[in-house]
Structures are given as C-alpha cells and as structure tokens.
C-alpha cells in the first residue's frame, strides 16, 4: 500500500463521509466511493473507508448479496445481466454491476465494451454499472474490484461482479463472491470439460443460456447435470435461460441465487474471502520474502484464522505485516 496520502485530516473525512452514506444506503455516494477505491495514491483512505463498512464496524456482515457472474465471450452474459437487472429492479432490489474487462498488455489501456450491452434505464438511480480494467491480470480481478464489492455490498441489495472467461477467472471471483454463477453456452463444451478435469471448481449455480435454441440447450443442460452428478454435486442447480422474447428462466435463476445465499454461512464465507484477499494483497506487496517470513501460505492462513472474523482486509494485512515484521 502506498503511503502517499495524508494519514488524517480532510481526505480521511471524505472516506468517513462516503462510508457513512454507504451505510445509510445512499446510492449516490457510490461513484465517488469507487473513484476513491480505485485511487492507488489513497491507500490509507481506502483502508479507512473499508474499515468503516466492515462487519467489525457494522456489527454484522454488509447485507448486499455479492454474485459473481462469469463465462466465455459470446455466451450471452450481457443479455442475461440485462434480464437479471430488470427482474431485480422489478422486485425493488437495488443493483450494482462491476464489469471487469481485460487490459492491453502493450499499452496498459483497455476497452471497456461490455457496458454497451447491459440495458438499463438511465433515470433509475437504483442501478449502477461500473466497468473496470483487470489491469494486466489475465482472467483476474482488478485489484480494486474486491474492495469495491465489499464497500458496495453495504449499500446495494445485489452486487454483481462480471468477468470474462472460463477456467481461471471464476477462481478469483469465488474468493470475493457469496454466490458464483458460471454461464455455459450450449454447443460449447468448455465449462463441462473444465469441471470434469477439475480445472474449474464446481460453481454454486450453472446457467445455460440461449435456451431458445431448443434441443441444443436441453442437451447442454442434461450433460452438465450428468457431470455434476458424477462429481457428487447433485444439489448444484442448472438453470436454462432464454433472454430472447419470450424470456424464460430468469425467475428460476433468481430463486436459485436466493436459495444458495440462504443456505450459506455468510459470515464464515465472507471472513474466509477477506482472509484470502488479505493474503493476496500481502503477497503482492511483500512477495516471496514476505511469505517466507510468515512461514508459508498455510501457516499464514492459520494465523489469519485466529484473528477476529469481522476484521476488514486492510487491518488483516497490517496484522500479517506485524507478524512478518516487514515494514508496511
């Protein structure tokens, strides 16, 4: 973490104010909060913001449902998200979508195209769509995306993290999301092969898009269910969705997402997610040397598990740094 920002004074005031507004579910604070979270020069303020919306500060986990949605290009993610956003809003739930796109290795720049594809009503203050570049991490999450999801889950009913790809990105998404949805395009065997081969963990919910394709979609759904059964994951829902009129399957999908969330030990999953994030941040900052000082990954995770479960990521990183006796 950079130490450039002043440790106290007005900017921290901004973080505190934004956190207070997010806690009050004031959605208009979200864009400014995201600008702050993405600001690499303001690590301390970001830490302060996250601390103020952590379970330790709130007395409970932030209430928003963090849903990871991932799938290959062309699988119909954007149409699905458009339909989901519409349905969630129809239920009166507020939604934030964090869309993650790859960055160009050559220039560092990125084209954040997916936003164009998610339809929403610009007058509706209950929807926020923010696209972020992955920042050079192939199939991975933008460094700020985890922090953004945690902060926004204090204010929004649903926070979606959308990533592109199959086989890599859902692993990182799984570290942040309460519920991971993998989208499968009928006719493409990718997800099926990855699950069978163990490259990809079994997601919480599988969606077969383009159900209007009829037999092809039905077969894809059957194959997936069979694969899940053979892996002993017979409870994992497989939902077929058509986003082309007449839309089908969206309500079933929402029920499956809600069902998964209800079955979850949320504090445990979130605490684990924060520990994984903290370790990843620590490793990014202090490298192999830092990890050796902690006695390796397993020892570090054991140490983190001994800390209070409601602590925010930045505090956990500090604890790791103290333990490893490395300068922050």
């Amino acid at each position, binding site marked *: 973490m950079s130490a450039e920002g002043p440790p106290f004074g007005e900017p921290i005031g901004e973080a505190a104010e934004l956190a207070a507004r997010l806690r009050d579910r004031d959605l208009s604070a*979200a*864009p400014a909060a*995201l*600008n702050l979270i*993405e*600001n*690499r*020069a*303001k690590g301390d303020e970001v830490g302060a913001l996250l601390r103020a919306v952590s379970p330790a500060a709130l007395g409970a986990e932030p209430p928003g449902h963090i849903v990871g949605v991932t799938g290959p290009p*062309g699988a119909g993610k954007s149409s699905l998200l458009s339909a989901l956003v519409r349905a969630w809003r129809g239920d009166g739930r507020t939604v934030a979508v964090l869309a993650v*796109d790859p*960055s*160009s290795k*050559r*220039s*560092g*720049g*990125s*084209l*954040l*195209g997916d*936003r*164009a*594809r998610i*339809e929403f009503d*610009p*007058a509706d203050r209950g929807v*926020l*769509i*923010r*696209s*972020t*570049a992955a920042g050079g991490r192939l199939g991975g999450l933008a460094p700020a995306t985890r922090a953004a999801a945690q902060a926004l889950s204090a204010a929004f009913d649903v926070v979606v993290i959308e990533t592109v790809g199959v086989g890599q990105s859902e692993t990182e998404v799984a570290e942040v999301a309460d519920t991971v949805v993998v989208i499968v395009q009928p006719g493409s065997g990718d997800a099926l092969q990855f699950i069978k081969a163990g490259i990809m963990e079994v997601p919480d919910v599988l969606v077969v898009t383009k159900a209007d394709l009829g037999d092809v979609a039905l077969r894809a759904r059957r194959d997936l269910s069979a694969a899940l059964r053979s892996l002993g994951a017979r409870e994992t829902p497989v939902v077929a969705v058509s986003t*082309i*009129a007449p839309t089908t399957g969206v309500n079933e999908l929402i029920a499956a997402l809600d069902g998964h969330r209800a079955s979850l030990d949320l504090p445990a999953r979130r605490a684990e997610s924060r520990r994984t994030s903290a370790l990843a941040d620590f490793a990014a900052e202090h490298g192999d040397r830092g990890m050796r000082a902690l006695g390796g990954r397993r020892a570090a995770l054991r140490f983190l598990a001994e800390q209070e479960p409601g602590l925010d990521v930045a505090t956990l990183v500090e604890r790791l740094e103290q333990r490893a006796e490395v300068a922050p």
Partner: protein
Amino acid sequence: MSVRLDQPDRPWMMRTYAGHSTAAKSNELYRRNLAKGQTGLSVAFDLPTQTGYDPDHELARGEVGKVGVPIAHRGDMATLMDGIPLDRMNTSMTINATAAWLLALYVVTAQEQGVEEGALAGTTQNDIIKEFLARGTYAFPPGPSMRLIADMVAYTVTRIPKWNPINICSYHLQEAGATPVQEIAYSLSNAIAVLDAVRERVDQELMGPVFGRISFFVNAGVRFVEEHAKLRAMGQLWDQIGRERYGVDDPKHLRFRYGVQVNSLGLTEQQPENNVQRIVLEALAVTLGRSARARAIQLPAWNEALGLPRPWDQQWSLRIQQVLAFETDLLEYPDIFEGSKVMDGLVAELVEGARAEMAVVAEHGGAVEAVPYMKAALVDSHRERIRRIEAGEQTVVGLNKYTETEDSPLTADAEGGILVVDPAVEAEQRAAVEEWRSQRDASDVERALAELRRVADSEENIMEATIAAARAGVTTGEWAQALRDVFGSYRAPTGVGDAAGEGASDDLEEIREEVERVSEALGRRVKILVGKPGLDGHSNGAEQIAVRARDAGLDVVYEGIRLTPAQIAASALQEGVHVVGLSILSGSHRELIPSVIEALREAGVDVPVVVGGIIPEADVEPLKSAGVAAVYTPKDFDLSKIMRDIVGLVGEGAKASA
C-alpha cells in the same frame, strides 16, 4: 469483334440522393431534380424514420428532417410523391429496418393515385446486416430482421414483380474502411444469408426470379482501376453463387445488377473543390467497362465532408453524370477491357482473396453469425487506413500533401457553402404528428396494430398487415414499437473490443508516457467515455477514437450508438471518467451537444467534453460557448494529435485539482 456498338447504349439511371426538412419541401426538390434531367428518385429519409421513431420521440431530438425527409404516416408519403406519377417513376429508398413499412406507405400512396401495386418499380435498400456492421440504423434483433427481409422478398416477387426488395450494400462497408476483398466477400456473404432465409419461405421454382431480384449497392473509391476490377470480380462470383448454390441457370437471373454511390470516405474538408475530380474518377470506375457497368448512379456532392449539400451542389453532381453519359463517347463501345491481361489478372486476384474471406465467414456460420467477426475486421482495416494517411504512406491531396492553398470562394458565404436545416422544422413536425394522431379513427388504428402484433408473432408474412396498418393511419413509431414489443430490441456489437492493438511507434510511446504521468498524478488510469448521442449510426469515427485511446493507454468506456443525453450523463457519473468524447455526423450537434453537457452538469459531472464529427466551421464557436473544450472535424485526421490534446486537457484538470 467490332470496336463499336451498332447502337450506343442507353445511359444508366441517374439519381440524386435527396430529401430534407419536410415532405412538402422534399417533393418540391424532387420535382425540380426531375425537370433537370434526373431519371429516377432516390429518397433520403431522416434518422427517426429510418430507425422507427416518430418526430416527437425522445431519441428523435435534433434529428428530424436532418439527413433526409421525415415520413411519419401515409399522409407524409402522399405529400412527398404529390404530382409524381408512381406508375412511371423508379424510386429507390434508402430504408432498412423499417423498409417493409415505407414500402407499405408507398403502395398505399400509389393506390390513392389510382396506381396498382403491380405497376410499381423501385428499390428498398433493406440490407440489415450492413446496418449491424457499418451504418447503425437497425431496429430489431438479427433473427426477426432477416425474417422481415425474407417476407418482403416473398411478397414482392409475386405482387410487385418490378421491385427490387433488397439492395445488398457493399457501399457502407467501404465507407467503414473495407478493403476491396472485404467489400466483395462480406457483401456476397450477406446476399447468401438473405437468399438462404428466403429459400425457406418460397417454392424452389421461384428461386430463379428471386435471385434475379437481388441487386447490389456498391461503392467506388478513387483507385478506380482496381475498383472497376472489383465490380467484374463481384459479377463473376455472383454468377457462380447463383449456379452452384441456388441452381439458377437463366442468364437473365444471373446478371450482377448494381447501383452505385461513389465514395464519401475519401472526400476531404480541406480544399473541398478537389472532391469534384475524385467523384469524376470514381464515376469512371463504375462506367468504364460495359460488362460491369452500373445500372443506376448517384454521386455525392463536393461538400459532403462539410455538411449537408444544397440543391445546387447536388445539381453539379448530376451534371457530372450527364457529361459522362451524353458528351463523352463512353457508351459507344463494347467492353473496353475484354482481353486485357492486367484487368483479368486484377480480377483473378480479387476473386481469390474474396473466396478465402467468404470461407472464413462461412466457418463462422454465415453472415449473421459472423457480424462480430466482420465488424472487428472492418474496424481494423479502417485503423490501418488512418495509420497510412497519418504516416504519409497514402497520399490525400490537400490533406497530408500539397496543403498550401488559397481561400476557397466556394465556402465563402455565410453558411460556409452548405445547407442549414431550419431548426423550426422539428417543432413543426412534432406538432404535425400529434395533429395526425388526433384526426384518426382510434379503433381502426388499435385493430391494425393488434393484427400486426399477432402476425409478427406468427409465421405469416408481415406485408399484408403492414399495408393495412399504413392504410389505417398508423405512424412510423407505432408500427416499429408494435414490432419491438414482439421481437425485442437489440444493440449491435461495437467491434472495438476485438480490434487489434497497435504496435510501438515513437508517437504512440510519447503519448503513452504522458498518459502514465497524468494517471500517476490522478492516482488512477485516465478514463474516457466515448459516446454517440442521437440516432446517427455512423460509428467509424467514434470507434477509431476509442481504439486509439486504448492504444494510447487510456481506459476507454465505449457504449455504442444511439444514446440519449441522460444515458451518457449516467454513464459518465457511474464510470468516474476524466473526459467525455462525443461524435455526431448527422448534423444534430447544435441541439444534442448542449443537452448532453447540461445533463452532465446536472449529474454533477464536471469534466471536459470534446466533440468530433461533421461540424461546420460556423458551429464551432457556439459549441465552445456551450461548454465544449475542443471540436474536431474531418480535417483533423491526425488521431495522435487529438489524443495528445485530450490527455493534455485531463492533465490540466489534474493539476487544477491537486
């Protein structure tokens, strides 16, 4: 072989792409053009009509009567064709997503004139794939759009046999940057997709006449020798497709028939008089060789890169055609390239290249499925074209070479030598459509729309219900909305995400360093929103800016076409961008840009806004006083300079807030 024809050929059909302001004004213009020796009509519709919105729809704001005539109902069509005998006219309509509707209005107007539909002759452009690829006036998703086209082909082949129900366009592909090989391959693949769809809806014995009714609308650039070879190559491939894929053997049906509008992409804002010679040479490309000569020609005006052409500018272009046809000896000879090794060699090269590219499209599953692939390929080609011009590898006289010039007397008048549409037109049209709605029999309209929805949701042909709706007084917006209700709406792929990244160059490295420096100062990477407000679908400029900005190291939010000011403002706020770039080519900038800025400021977004497009010089100052930080027009071909400006603007902001 005789070196002369016994009889000189009849000239091609001469048209002028025209229409603006109102149906009455456009009718007056058509009548004058016909009196000047024009032999057919080419109707330009405004963007709301092309995309299925009435003049009082939010998205129509600033666009009514701009790039063409607004036609909201049969009353407008009757006014447009008033005094023009439709049984003796050949009318070409540049209309695509709403083609079935405009044809229906035309049929009803003819019937009101006492002309049976079977006597009508003309063309509806009706090529939706190129709208997804290049032009942007689509309204419905690909599947239903293809069905509407197939319905029109099936209807006209028996009921309006002299109608060309579809004009497959390679024109817009070249405007979007296509190479000759891409232009041939994508347009022919497109024709195959249409014919495959029609084959499912008509009897096999009708496939000959159906094939014979498919015509093309092509482009010709200034490299006129190769361009002529391109047309011969298209003819060869077309003949082969007809025989092999569709079992057509009547030579009459196999003829490659095309109309043409020559290239606008290559026309320059600098020294605009040079465009006249470009247009003449391009006209030669489509007329020189008899065996691949255009059936109908319309030429752009010399001032298209400046704004909308006036009647006088269009007359000049018509006179070019007349000099070519009536003063020169062009029409007295058989094909002058027959036996030419060079021409045959060029044709063979293009045929081979196009076959290979068509195979790639076929591997994607055909033209409909390959839209994202083709779109990305076009964005790439266009990027390469701009790079060559910037680097001086491709000479454009007056633009990157021989730029010293005297002031042009052609642009010396108050308007800068272009047509300015009276802003009062839009208000008039809004009031007129409201008046029209209040005068109709509401129950007739409801019944017609209910029937239209029922048919749209069934397998039946859409034309009968559409003609009935036209007769009942349904409006353009109502017809399209009824179909949107059934078909859903759609956004086409932008193509920019898949465009290849640019390699290293000193210029780009320098900008990247500056981007890094400004990004460090800001704490996060410089982020730009590239937006296209309004209905204008010409997205080339916006796409090239988006791709170059990414290559310069910016995070780029590009949202595609057809956005309201409210949508742009919401995106800018939510995305936390540092700068907003807007692109408009339809002439609606005076209305739309200030509304976008107002919406941004209302949303609390106080970042610099830059604008690019066909912006007449006279409009630059008003835009700046409305809050625009910089204006770019076609003469600003150096994208690197634009990038440096934009990064500089953001940098100043970063300093000011530090």
